[in-house]
């Protein structure tokens, strides 16, 4: 079930830092070549990518929970099928991404354990609750919209397996984004109660969504090396700005008000947002968001309650193998 063979990546020369190799590596990156799993890469590149890809995978898996919260209550059979398919897609994204991370030498089992123990992070956006059906529309519209802004450039990431996974993920995400927007359109054209539900969801999700792009450029820790390695091609602030500029007309179309009375359009046509409450971001990152405990508890529960099933599958596979060996020996 898990790729045990990948548990250890010691004993080869891939971790050895060597100036000539590092120079060649950077030259390949500069020439826009793709780095593949068996190529030499600096240990820090491997570590950065393992962290980023596995965090991304964890986010997909934890991200199933807030939306999964509405599958059994979706208000029509069409919406129910679309939501179930969407959450299933997220699980699929998690699987591709764990597979991409495994090519860097850490097993899915280890990566998942790091998430369950709280050591590895996932996107903080999933630590907010889905209180009404409008949250499902808003997540599709804004959270998936923001994810696409982040992920489209990753389709050209220097690491081949990650870039290829992102191409497929982005196609599905943009479908989800359109679905979410369509839920919002329906709510905004519906009854006064539905429209109020949509506005309330936007009010609650707007600022956390802006935080999804990460800290402002002047304080971001990872950006410089990630940019040099072409893992990251745009800065946090650049992506955030692109997202806001794309979203403002959509909110206008819906007849919803972005909960930032101070937001203004500058001479270049960009919408300039008011200061973001980075204390809230730090609190959620530190484990103090409204749902951090619930999310981890749900993942741990699924993992622990599934242990006997996974053990049974392993035990059966072992039995079958030894029976086949015994038969072959006869």
């Amino acid at each position, binding site marked *: 079930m898990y790729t045990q063979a990948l548990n250890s990546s010691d004993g080869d020369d891939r971790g050895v830092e060597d100036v000539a190799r590092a120079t060649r590596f950077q030259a390949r990156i500069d020439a826009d070549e793709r780095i593949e799993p068996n190529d030499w890469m600096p240990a820090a590149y491997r570590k950065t990518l393992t962290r980023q890809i596995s965090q991304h995978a964890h986010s997909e898996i934890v991200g199933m929970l807030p939306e999964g919260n509405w599958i059994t209550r979706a208000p029509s059979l069409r919406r129910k099928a679309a939501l179930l398919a969407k959450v*299933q897609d997220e699980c699929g994204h998690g*699987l591709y991404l764990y597979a991409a991370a495994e090519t860097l030498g850490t097993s899915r089992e280890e990566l998942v354990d790091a998430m369950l123990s709280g050591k590895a992070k996932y996107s903080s956006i999933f630590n907010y609750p889905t209180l009404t059906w409008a949250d499902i529309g808003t997540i599709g519209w804004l959270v998936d919209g923001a994810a696409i802004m982040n992920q489209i450039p990753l389709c050209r990431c220097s690491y081949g397996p990650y870039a290829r996974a992102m191409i497929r993920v982005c196609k599905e995400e943009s479908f989800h984004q359109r679905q979410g927007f369509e839920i919002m359109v329906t709510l905004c054209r519906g009854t006064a109660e539905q429209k109020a539900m949509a506005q309330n969801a936007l009010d609650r999700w707007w600022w956390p969504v802006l935080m999804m792009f990460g800290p402002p450029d002047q304080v971001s820790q990872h950006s410089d090396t990630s940019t040099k390695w072409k893992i990251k091609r745009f800065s946090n602030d650049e992506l955030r700005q692109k997202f806001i500029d794309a979203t403002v007309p959509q909110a206008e179309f819906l007849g919803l008000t972005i909960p930032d009375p101070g937001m203004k359009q500058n001479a270049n046509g960009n919408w300039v947002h008011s200061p973001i409450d980075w204390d809230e971001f730090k609190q959620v990152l530190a484990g103090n968001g409204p749902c951090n405990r619930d999310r981890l508890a749900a993942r741990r529960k699924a993992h622990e309650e599934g242990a006997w099933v996974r053990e049974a599958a392993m035990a059966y596979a072992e039995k079958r193998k030894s029976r086949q060996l015994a038969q072959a020996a006869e």
Partner: protein
Amino acid sequence: MATANIEVSETPLVLYALRRADDALILGHRLSEWCGHAPAMEEDMALANMGLDLLGQARELDTYAAKVEGRGNDEDKFAYLRDVRQYRNLLLVEQPNGDFARTMVRQFFYAAFADLYWRAMMASSDATLAAIAAKSEKESAYHLRHSSEWIVRLGDGTEESHRRAQNAIDDLWAYTGEMFAVDDGERGLIDAGIAIDPATLKSRWLKTVTGIVNEATLALPKSDWMQQGGRIGSHSEHLGHLLSELQSLQRTFPGATW
């Protein structure tokens, strides 16, 4: 104001389609409850996949029931605006998920039936039902393969998985008889070549089930007492809770479009 239940003119053909739609909807809903909580990510994918198949079957059957009935009902009215006494599904499919063994045994008992049933229904003289059957048969064949493989793994896995699988079989066995029962209305459809007689599938179903259960080193119960009532709206206590969740938005915001 709560939204009132719809009225349904349950002619034999409408009732026939609604019964099968309700089987698929309720079982699909149960499978969807697993989403995000399955024992492995691969199973999250598989359970959602089967849930989606069943939801699709339910929608087609409901849409057909609405067309035959011709009173302005539709798939959502059937799903969201009938109460527990108006639901017509088998008792088996409304049983709670329980642990993974229980979910798989429930799926296995049903899929082993549905696979045979839809294959036979492909010969229905009703073109719509025959087309729905052709699609559902392909899906049910996969559901049967998937659940059969798990029954064998769980039964012949560890002591714990064996015990859990056997408990699930013992607890769910009494809900299997209802799949083969036929009432007078349905008898008319069978005579007209629109429906097939499920009783004719029983020995083949039992053969499939016994084969897998034996391979899994499990046993079928000796008791042949069978619970009935789902087809006429006499359900277990579980269905009402499922419906209160399923229908909550439609009941809270009467008449809204979603």
